[in-house]
């Protein structure tokens, strides 16, 4: 006990939960995360409690897992890191490349001056959780210094001299007895759907809305920062779609969208909300009463819109076929929220190659063989609570494996 090492790839809900469970069993965990911040998609989600009552969206559980992971003595985190290659010879030996982290966590006090002073939009990234320290990161893809050395404002003005723009990337080797792939999902990119995402400012995704609510507590139209009077949610964007060969329900979007819709109704009661859907999925134990209340405030329309146009005043015209009258109808709104689904993440390709395991027919990755495991939404759609349960069960399997208690076939 205590001398076993597990490499966890991906620091989202799944990677963090599994890491904490393993660490609690006395296993040492090396957690590597591709992005600058831990927490994955869900760390940017808003609390959707209404009437002072928790609606069980699960967002705060991710915060809790993140906190346990970063303070756990058995977990070592490498952010901005990726596996270069891996070899297996009883144990695994992985070469990891860590991008330069520019801001020194020891010195940074999260004053936020760099973000305020940076002339380049998107070059200083802001985190979502106080448990990600530093709360800010330099995005070397946007930063002018990395482009042509033309700007050093943040370095010059940082009162703690925490910024080192010349900091080099580093290489690490990690030896491990087992590997967990927890690289999560890719939100469906709706730019090829006829909904104008990427072209019309006021068409956003469910993920954008989660973050907007978490950051500012309100929904505003991206075009002018004013409160929208009318919002439409469109469900199943990229899910349950035979044309895309996406033959799965993403499970989480009905819950996320309806909970956000009710939250908006509570905070901005004058907003009218229309909700386009195929079937409303059950979420949570209190679904029936929750849904009953939702139907009072939200206009439910059982249709999936054909397309969306932007009008001269930037309002959006949604065309759909009314089921009972067969007429083409239109709905004019200020903001459209596309409930984009969970799809296989790009790096499944890389992982398949590195570990020589193939994805399933939908493109997701599932394995628990020969010391390589997967957990969370890399396996397919899951909610946060499901991801946590799934990761616990995988942590248990890993523990059995490294203790030699698994009979592999």
């Amino acid at each position, binding site marked *: 006990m205590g001398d076993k090492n597990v490499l966890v790839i991906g620091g989202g809900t799944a990677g963090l939960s599994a890491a904490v*469970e393993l660490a*609690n*069993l*006395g296993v040492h965990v090396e957690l590597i995360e591709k992005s600058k911040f831990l927490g994955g998609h869900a760390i940017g989600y*808003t*609390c959707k*409690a209404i009437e*002072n*009552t*928790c609606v*069980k969206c699960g967002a*705060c*559980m991710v*915060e*809790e897992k993140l*906190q346990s992971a970063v303070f756990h003595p058995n977990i070592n985190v490498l952010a901005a890191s990726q596996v270069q290659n891996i070899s297996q010879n009883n144990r695994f030996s992985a070469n990891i490349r860590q991008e330069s982290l520019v801001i020194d966590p020891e010195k940074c006090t*999260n004053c*936020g001056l760099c973000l305020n002073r940076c002339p380049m939009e998107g070059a200083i990234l*802001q*985190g979502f959780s*106080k448990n990600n320290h530093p709360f800010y990161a330099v995005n070397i893809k946007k930063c002018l210094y990395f482009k042509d050395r033309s700007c050093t404002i943040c370095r010059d003005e940082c009162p703690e001299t925490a910024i080192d723009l010349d900091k080099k990337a580093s290489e690490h080797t990690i030896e491990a007895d087992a590997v967990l792939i927890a690289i999560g999902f890719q939100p469906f990119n709706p730019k090829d759907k006829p909904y104008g995402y990427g072209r019309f400012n006021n068409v956003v995704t469910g993920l954008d809305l989660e973050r907007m609510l978490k950051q*500012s*507590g309100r929904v505003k139209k991206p075009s002018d920062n004013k409160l929208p009077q009318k919002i439409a949610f469109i469900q199943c964007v990229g*899910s*349950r779609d*035979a044309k895309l060969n996406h*033959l*799965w*329900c993403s*499970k989480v979007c*009905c819950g996320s969208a309806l909970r956000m819709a009710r939250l908006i109704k509570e905070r901005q009661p004058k907003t009218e909300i229309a909700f386009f859907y195929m*079937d*409303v*999925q*059950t*979420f*949570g*134990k*209190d*679904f029936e009463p929750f*849904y009953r209340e939702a139907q009072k405030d939200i206009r*439910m329309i*059982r249709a999936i819109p054909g397309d969306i146009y932007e009008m001269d005043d930037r309002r959006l015209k949604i065309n759909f076929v009314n*089921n*009972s*009258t*067969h007429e083409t109808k239109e709905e004019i709104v200020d903001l459209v929220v596309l409930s984009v689904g969970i799809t296989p993440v790009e790096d499944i390709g890389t992982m398949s190659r590195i570990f020589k395991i193939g994805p399933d027919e939908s493109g997701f990755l599932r394995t628990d063989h020969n010391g390589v495991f997967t957990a969370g939404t890399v396996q397919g759609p899951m909610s946060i*609570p*499901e991801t*946590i*349960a*799934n990761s*616990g*069960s995988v942590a*248990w*399997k890993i*523990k*059995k494996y490294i*203790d030699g*208690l698994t009979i592999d076939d």
Partner: protein
Amino acid sequence: MKKQTLILGNGPCAVAVAENLLTVGSKIIIATKDDVGGFIGYADSEDLQILTETRLVSCQGSVGNFRIEATQNNKSVTIDAGRIIIAEEDQRTSNFSRYGLKASSNVIPLSRMKILLNDTSPEESVLSEIKKVIFLTGIVKESTPVIANEVMESSLLLQKEFNIQTYILTKNLKVAGDGLESLYRETKNAGTIYIKFTDSLPGIYQEEDTIRIEFVDEITSRNFRLTPDMTVVDETIVASPYLTDLTKIFHIEADADGFVQADNVHRYPVLTNRKGIMVTGPSRGILTDDDQRIDAENAALAVTGLAEEEMETKLEKAEIHSEKCIQCLNCYHLCPHHAITLNERVEVEPDACEGCGICTANCLGGAIRIKNLNLQAILHQIKTGDVAQAEQTFTPLLVAFCCSRSAVQARELALCMGHELPLGLKVIQVPCAGAISYDHIFAVLKNGADGIMLLTCHKGNCHSERGNIFAGQVVKLIKGIFSIIGFEKERLSIQTLASNMGTEFSWITNRFEKTIAALGPSRLMKNQWPENQRRPNMKGNTG
């Protein structure tokens, strides 16, 4: 020495829990109120003991040291266990009455259809006579993916193996489960016809042996009448009634439907309000077979984790000073973690105590102490006069009792995000807002606070389940006193937050500052301040 783990139940979930624990060499004892069930073929050994026909009667002790009394065929037995895992099976009720139907040879529940499909070969089955089958599911009340899966699988078999035309009548088809959307497509390709209702409902008529179902199809607007040879009615999955006994015996919280896990995200997946008692699968909710297996593994993990982990030492635990205890037993009744035991004396089980402080706030004898809730220490944090006052404007001293799990975290996030917080805000971290008593509130008022906030977790999100509700009651009562004595009620406020609500933390505290600034300094302060130190508009306050 690790004590054995008690597993309750005899179904697949209980077996999965047992299997997992046996693999890692844990000692287990299984108690089932019925026969061996899924444990058939298992023999008692050094690591395993099976007690059949055994019902629990009572449970004493706490994590690591439970002592359970049970009856086995009218004899009483005692079981000692370190942990307990509840894995009782659920039950089903048929939804005939919801559709105004009565069971008959051609109106059957879903489980019966599953048996018909499993038991016989196509040629000799009663199904061989049948041409048309209708499934009614989730029409009056919403269904679940577990039931939808069974309906679609049955319908697929009927279409494929028996060449029977099937219809599925439903409202919202529940496909939020692994593989269900492709199963739905498969049934459609195999010929199943789906009829979905949104605002309308079908008319269902049962006359002797015939069933007639009439409806307007919402897509084609045409009237339809179906007369199936067989109608299959869906079922509702409900908690085993034995669970009601278990919740009382173990003092654990149940959800609105009687499953033994409060609907609280901090308990997911398998925890209860009591340390060392876990709940899995069909005892905690409506779960698929896969999810039940996952639960079993999480329970095994929780047992092993708890056993290996040094019992948490960071937490400040409650201590009862028995010379002051007047045996009111408030602590015993209110402790959400059932950490108080009654022997000769009232005592706290340190291993079970989560340090929430709810007992201290409600102890009539003032006998219970938790170090970080000590009044002197709290008052020390809000020393009068701490708030720097500007010339003209009044900066109120705002004391916020913040729950360590939610509001304290939210404040840190607010600071990271760069939100401005009120200058005079003093945050006092408490383990749970339920630990705040009248004493705290009045002492803080007396010591200079112009306004007091209790910032708790949202309802249903409290780690101690009702700590926030207790806090709400305290606030309500004190506000009642305030209105009698003519003190501004607005000076006391309770609000809820989650750990990830940085922006909302700043809204709430800044709004409160505005309210209090408008009221001016608290009149309780007026005479306690030397003239030269009085705050700017204190003189204007007639109080």
